């Protein structure tokens, strides 16, 4: 398989927001837990609130790049699994652990000098992603590997309406690769799926920045929904004999509305609160389509539309920035993030739960032009008890625990 080098590096496979959206896309964003909409100060403004580009130094070009190393501990499942039949798989067999993942994710942001009231910028980020790999027998049937990788190219414009108000927006071009592998042979279900696909999809983002006073900033951003219509090939096996099909599946990157307000004291301490509404209800079904009829015995497992019926979520973020000295900036953040996945439709590809997210970081001004820094984020997922096996149906009866993520970002900023 040919691979995009960039995409391989940007294996955006972390779960730092509910489900598979990734809001932390820069050093500041990581250190503040994405409580970074109203008061944005660097090249990453192009991504977090492009309207704020109007309030950056108009003569200066801003550039930032960095890399995030994501460590994803394994998820643990303890409980039973009800398979069609119905066949009850006892917990001694059905319990299992997902694989530990360690993934590097690069990013880049740029803001050009102002041209009158206009200014442009560009970001290259990984806005969403997911990977779950299970080796345990039952889980392997559903998600031997379930991976969604995305890279977004996001050129943006801002327009300064007045000294206190600016608007902005941009185009979102997302390249995505999906991979869905499942294998039931270890539990005597002789079916297997290997699917790989990719797509390029487009969306938009809008932003408003209002600075009513020197020390108060308000920001509102909206990122549109993008349906990732992954198209590719699928090998479907029944009892060791496979056939290849054209295949497709659609998964949304949901629309998201962010409202942030910040207050700065003595040019040193800034507190920002962000409310995020993510419109996950767009994810109604997981429906694989094939170019020709598949083996009839595989229909229920691999062709039948699976209801998801995810729910819109709220996320509350709080970020604190402290200008310790001319050279050193300290940052920390906390977020509470709701899971969009309803109990009835949770599965091993994304055993999501509500999360408490803690973050911290610093930025050091090496020279007038060059700054560098690092940040760490800890995403603590709460345990989740599940009973999705409705009367006479199939599903999970047990508890997901562990999981979460630890992310470390190293970033470099340059102004010229």
């Amino acid at each position: 398989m040919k691979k995009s080098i960039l995409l391989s590096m940007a294996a955006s496979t972390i779960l730092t927001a509910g489900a598979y959206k990734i809001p932390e896309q820069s050093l500041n964003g990581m250190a503040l837990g994405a409580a970074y909409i109203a008061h944005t100060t660097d090249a990453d403004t192009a991504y977090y609130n492009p309207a704020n580009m109007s309030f950056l130094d108009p003569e200066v070009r801003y550039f930032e790049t960095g890399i995030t190393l994501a460590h994803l501990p394994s998820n643990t499942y303890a409980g039973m699994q009800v398979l069609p039949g119905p066949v009850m798989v006892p917990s001694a067999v059905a319990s299992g652990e997902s694989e530990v993942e360690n993934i590097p994710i690069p990013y880049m942001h740029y803001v050009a000098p102002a041209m009158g009231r206009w200014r442009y910028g560009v970001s290259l980020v990984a806005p969403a992603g997911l990977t779950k790999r299970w080796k345990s027998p039952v889980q392997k049937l559903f998600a031997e590997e379930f991976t969604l990788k995305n890279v977004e190219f996001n050129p943006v414009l801002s327009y300064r309406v007045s000294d206190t108000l600016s608007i902005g927006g941009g185009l979102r071009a997302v390249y995505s690769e999906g991979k869905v592998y499942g294998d039931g042979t270890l539990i005597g279900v002789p079916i297997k799926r290997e699917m790989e696909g990719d797509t390029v999809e487009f969306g938009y983002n809008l932003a408003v920045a209002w600075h009513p006073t020197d020390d108060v900033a308000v920001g509102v951003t909206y990122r549109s929904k993008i349906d990732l219509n992954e198209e590719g090939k699928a090998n479907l096996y029944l009892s060791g004999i496979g056939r290849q099909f054209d295949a497709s599946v659609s998964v949304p990157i949901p629309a998201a509305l962010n409202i942030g307000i910040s207050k700065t004291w003595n040019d040193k301490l800034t507190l920002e609160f962000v409310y995020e509404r993510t419109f996950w209800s767009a994810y109604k079904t997981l429906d694989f389509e094939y170019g020709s009829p598949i083996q009839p015995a595989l229909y229920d497992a691999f062709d039948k539309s699976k209801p998801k019926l995810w729910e819109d979520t709220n996320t509350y973020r709080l970020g604190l920035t402290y200008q310790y000295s001319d050279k050193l900036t300290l940052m920390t953040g906390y977020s509470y993030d709701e899971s969009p996945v309803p109990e009835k439709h949770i599965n091993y590809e994304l055993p999501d739960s509500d999360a408490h997210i803690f973050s911290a970081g610093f930025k050091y001004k090496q020279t007038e032009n060059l700054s560098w820094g690092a940040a760490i984020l800890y995403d603590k997922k709460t345990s989740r008890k599940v009973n999705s096996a409705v009367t006479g149906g199939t599903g999970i009866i047990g508890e997901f625990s562990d999981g979460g993520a630890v992310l470390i970002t190293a970033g470099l900023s340059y102004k010229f």
Partner: protein
Amino acid sequence: MKYLWTSVLAAVMLLVTGCGDLAQPDNPQVEGGEVVVNFSPELMKKTLVSKGIVDENKTVFGYTAYKIPYTTTDEEGMEVAVSGMMVVPTGLPEVVTERIGLSLVSDDHGTIFANDEAPGVIGEKTSAPDGAAIILTALAGFVTLQPDYIGFGDSNDHYHPFVLKKSLANATVDFIAAAKQFASDNNIKLNDQLFLTGYSEGGYAALATLQKIEKEGGPQVTIAAPMSGPYAMNEMAMGVLSKPTLGVPSFMANVGYAYAKTYGKPLTDVINEPYASKLPALFDGSLTRTEIDPQLTTKTTGEDGLFNPLLVGSFFQDPDHWFKQAMLENDVHRWGPQTPVKLVHCIGDDVIPFAISQLAEGTMKAYHATDVSIVPVEIAITQDPGTAIRFGHAECGKYAYGVAAKIFGAARAAVFHY
């Protein structure tokens, strides 16, 4: 700045670089064919138990099906690339698979219209066991050979020579030879037992195959048990064309279509318009019988009937008419087989009358057949000569295959004791 934008553009170019193709499925490799179904004995049993076909105590064998390409000869004497499915039981004792060898059953399939109904195509598309091979292989432990025939499978672009004995026999005999070679190439040990069977058109093909083998030489056939076939084509045609309506118009339309093509006659000499113009599309392998029948008339003949009234009149009045002669040429019962023949047929058959097998039995005996007898299915399964049970043509198939499997099983046990 220039470098920056170059980098961005490079990144964008990388973004639109797509995935390559997913590698083809890693199916087991064999020489001269392709594995299309592979069910272990355990999985096969689990499947059959779950469907209520057998109970837990029944011995069930595994089912490995190979699609084998080979060549045969059509009615015009031209070579045609065709395909067939060879289904091999697994899980038999080593003494059978390594020393005694497996017995072969050549099973010619019944009338089909859609290419998707051909054995090799079903196996390839579903990856699951299907049809008569479940009885003959998974339950009875025979290697089952199912030629797709000319017109289906790999030769779907060729018209199907429906109930034309030469090419049906060719397709079967050539497949037996191809399958034996395949077995040899892939270390599947066979013994010398060869049984012939088939249902409906397949019953006709099985008897045509036996006739070809006895006439031209070929592998020794142990027993032939053709089932519910239209062996006496002339009498079948007389019966159908003398009735005002056709129960299943696609059957006779297909006879008219195939015979007109084979004997080089204009289709409109046989079939009336507008049906004649429709037939090439109706019989191109894309439609099933239930999709074809509504597009034809059930009126047998006349101005608005299916068959050209001139043809029907000539068939009954002119013994030298080409259609009459073609029917007689394609009868498969006017000879005396020296191989044991069991004519398996349901007494209640509503499509191919039981009387056809009675006629075949009597005729073959008159031709000094050594061992021909009728096996009425309803009596065979109830062991009651006075049974009132009757099975129609469609329902009869599964019972008939069970009866044939018992006949073959007894012959195998008599020699190999398994």
